[in-house]
């Protein structure tokens, strides 16, 4: 059995209450941080752990923390990004529902390390249920003396609040999130200045994903070195993976980084394979924004090695033959799924969620949506495929925030790997309305690499 840090006690009845969580060793990290480690000690442990941001970008958390400006007399803030909206990702909602105290404990320890006295958890508005759960958990922690004034007689004060969003994917981008937290439209800010210098209310701010903050608890408890022993290479620790789409056992899994993709999909300990006797056609490995890969390339890299669930292995081959770990939103497609239709669906999503600030994203996502719609509905032409590639290329890298890239990559990668399916739609406008292209060669083993 793989080691579990975040979900260790997830099946324990009552783990969502303070009492049970505490009885099973909860809030030890707060005691250790406040009584012995001190803020610098916590920061060092997080740096040693090699923890990388779990929201998608994979930026080292310790380094992000060390960038925080500390001018005299200006309050600093920690904001937890719980605006989980990336299609395919539902791990944070799961964690907040069933183990809310691990997030609260992580927030206390992290806020202490950063010297923040007021911290916010920005939860997407759709998760009203989780907002109530967190508010209850905060009240319990406060009643037990782990929040509020002079926590554990250490002289450290912390107030923690939950802030609801209201249905905007873009607010998962950290500067859009801060705008939203200030009561404005969620338009991402131009960087620099980065939030570490000028964030919430113009004050130095760190924004971290739910899972990153929760991971700090075991890093403080067991030490960064212990944490870094789990995983592979620069992908340390455990990762929550949201498994969705055509998989037998959909749900949230905590894996040790470095697990093979094949084992994750097919073993009974994890997803248990593809239901209804179907075969795997494609996988989006890290949430809708990352490049889609055909079955053969997700199981093996282009050089024939086993693909592993880690930042490096999933990215091997660059965007030509690789993808990204992203937020860990793992979406599997069986042979009956239409890649054109799915690409159109994702593009419609990005069009809907574009904030409209930058022309390439605002216009480009709408354009791609219309072109993909026409291909999917039997009105496409060959030039449309090249047009899509061209539009995607012109969005990528030309916008304030990464939503533009996130909209461009799925389209570019779908055409890169499934071009024959797009062409089939164009050649068979009638037939493509009634049946799917099928599996073609996407699941065939890769032929040995030719040396160039």
């Amino acid at each position, binding site marked *: 059995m793989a080691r579990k840090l975040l979900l260790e006690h997830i099946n324990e009845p009552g783990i969502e209450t303070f009492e049970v969580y505490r009885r099973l060793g909860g809030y030890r990290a707060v005691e250790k941080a406040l009584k012995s480690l001190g803020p610098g000690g916590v920061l060092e442990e997080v740096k040693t752990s090699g923890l990388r941001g779990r929201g998608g970008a994979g930026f080292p958390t310790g380094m992000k923390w060390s960038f925080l400006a500390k001018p005299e007399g200006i309050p600093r803030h920690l904001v937890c990004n719980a605006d989980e909206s990336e*299609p395919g990702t539902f791990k944070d909602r799961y964690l907040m529902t069933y183990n809310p105290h691990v997030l609260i404990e992580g927030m206390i320890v992290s806020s202490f390390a950063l010297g923040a006295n007021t911290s916010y958890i920005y939860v997407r*508005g*759709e998760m009203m249920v989780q907002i109530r759960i967190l508010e209850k958990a905060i009240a319990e922690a406060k009643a037990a003396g782990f929040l509020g004034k002079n926590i554990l007689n250490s002289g450290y004060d912390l107030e923690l609040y939950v802030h609801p969003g209201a249905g*905007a994917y873009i607010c998962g981008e950290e500067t859009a999130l801060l705008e939203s937290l200030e*009561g404005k439209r969620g338009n991402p800010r131009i960087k620099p200045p980065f939030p570490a210098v000028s964030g919430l209310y113009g004050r130095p701010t760190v924004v971290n994903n739910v899972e990153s903050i929760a991971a700090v608890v075991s890093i403080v408890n067991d030490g960064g070195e212990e944490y870094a022993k789990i995983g592979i290479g620069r992908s340390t620790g455990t990762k929550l993976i949201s498994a969705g*789409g055509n998989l037998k056992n959909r749900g949230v899994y905590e894996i040790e980084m470095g697990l093979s993709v094949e084992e994750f999909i097919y073993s009974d300990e994890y997803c248990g394979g593809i239901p209804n006797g179907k075969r795997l056609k494609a996988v989006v490995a890290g949430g809708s924004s990352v490049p889609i890969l055909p079955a053969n390339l997700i199981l093996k890299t282009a050089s024939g090695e086993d693909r592993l669930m880690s930042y490096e292995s999933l990215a091997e081959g660059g965007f030509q033959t690789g993808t990204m770990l992203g937020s860990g939103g793992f979406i599997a497609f069986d042979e009956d799924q239409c890649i054109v239709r799915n690409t159109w*669906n*994702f593009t419609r999503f990005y069009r809907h969620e574009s904030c409209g600030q930058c022309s390439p994203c605002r216009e480009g996502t709408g354009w791609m949506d219309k072109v993909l719609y026409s291909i999917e509905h039997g009105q496409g032409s060959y030039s449309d495929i090249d047009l899509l590639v061209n539009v995607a290329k012109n969005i990528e890298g030309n916008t304030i925030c990464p939503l533009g890239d996130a909209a461009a990559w799925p389209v570019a990668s779908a055409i890169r790997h499934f071009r024959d399916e797009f062409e089939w739609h164009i050649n068979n406008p009638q037939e493509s309305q009634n049946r799917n292209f099928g599996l073609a060669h996407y699941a065939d083993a890769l032929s040995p690499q030719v040396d160039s």
Partner: protein
Amino acid sequence: MLSVKDTEKGDFSPELIAKFDEIVARYPEGQQKSALLPIMHEVQAQEGWMSVASMDKIATYLKIQPIEVYEVATFYTMFFLRPQGKYVLEVCRTGPCCLVGAEEIMEYIEKKLGVKEGEVTEDGLFSWRGVECMAACGAGPVLHIGPEYKYHENLTEESIDKLITELKNK
């Protein structure tokens, strides 16, 4: 510094105003605009939608310009800018849910309720719409209904029937 206490409070109920005051206290002094989204959620939970009159009152309460409320209301998809059915069925329509039948579920809801997306049934009880990813891909197809936003997961035609009957008898 703006002080919320001195502002015109309009005719929201005293209970609601007390809730607003509690929300405003979460943010630093002078940053009461941060309370806008949570306050709008409270108002919509009470009134079912976001009228211009309500938005104006919120602006007065928070001592901000009405346009600052309108621009937020039009940006975030959770706010209804026109009256809805008492129960709004919001169904996830994004990729992972479509892989497991969300499109068929939406067709079924349309047929069952007899109204198109965004329209209200004659009895005023129901409306429905497709929304983007609700972060429940492991249990799709999925829908939720405000203002509690409890998720109804792994939807089937039977579970939709049951849900609608329950809501009708509520």
